[in-house]
């Protein structure tokens, strides 16, 4: 299963990708912002993990555009962000995010959220 990992921090991309590899997902593609993510997204991507605060196109903007595309309408989107006030979480939800992880996160939390969305990703 291919994961698209979107974050402007190279450190965070590496941490997420290493966490994915640790739980058995080795097929990953990465992007530094929403625009790059849109360019790299195709039907082979089955799961998206995105940050919120990024240059050029934020995670919520990216998710909205993704949801408007036929090939991105149903792909699970997991947001991993430092933003954690109620309004932000609701905004992310409205943008089409399926679940939400607050930074700094533990590998267990990442695994739980991915596991919960896997049936949708596999569909």
């Amino acid at each position: 299963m291919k994961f698209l990992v979107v974050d402007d921090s190279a450190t965070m991309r590496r941490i997420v990708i290493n966490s994915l590899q640790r739980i058995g997902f080795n097929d990953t593609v990465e992007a530094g912002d929403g625009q790059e993510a849109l360019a790299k997204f195709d039907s082979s991507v089955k799961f998206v993990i995105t940050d919120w605060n990024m240059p050029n196109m934020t995670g919520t903007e990216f998710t909205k555009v993704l949801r408007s595309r036929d090939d991105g309408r149903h792909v699970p989107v997991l947001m991993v962000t430092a933003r954690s006030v109620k309004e932000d979480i609701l905004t992310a939800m409205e943008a089409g995010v399926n679940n939400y992880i607050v930074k700094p996160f533990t590998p267990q939390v990442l695994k739980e959220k991915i596991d919960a969305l896997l049936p949708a990703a596999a569909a």
Partner: protein
Amino acid sequence: MSDSRAQTAYYESEAALRLVDKELDQLRDGAEAVSRFVTVSLADLPLILERANNQIRAVLSHLRETRQALQSTTFEKLQTTHDKIKEVTSATEDAAINIMDACDRASQIVDELDTIDAAETPDRGKATELRATLRDELFMMMGALQFQDITSQQLAHASSVLVEMETRLADIANLFDSSLATDPPLATLQAGAPDERTYDPNATTRNAEQRQHLADEIFTAVKAPAA
């Protein structure tokens, strides 16, 4: 005091200063007229002076209010910035200590593996177990590096506050010397301000579990969009 109130006070003061400037111009013109035409009555002079006096009093009042507003907002923002920088220091130290602790534990595990290897009949089961623990420790070290992303957002926020303060001070200086408006160093500073889309002003390494719990509660209470 809110930013908007400070800004209003600031603009009112600017307007008042311009009025005074106009009044002083009129006063100067009046004085010139007096000097040119000796026949002009001096009876108007007290009136002109009283008007100028009133304007100056009004300006002083506005300037006092502006000073208080700027002092208040500046103090609040600088205090927040100071707190953020303190948190960066604290988060960096916490991460460094966590990583050093993990290094110590990893080093002990390597020693234990050496002991197992040196034994006449090495306990392979124990060695496998220790290697798994070693991997966990290494992974934990990587996770601790998440502080870098969060502290970089905190520093971006602190930097944006400093640029804002500098801009505000430059605006005030510009009231007295308009040539500063095109000051190249100020333009460079503003252009180099962090993009506000790239950071969260509230980013923190603290209370991650509580904040995750809040997110989980919201996603449970409000039905998340179906994937």
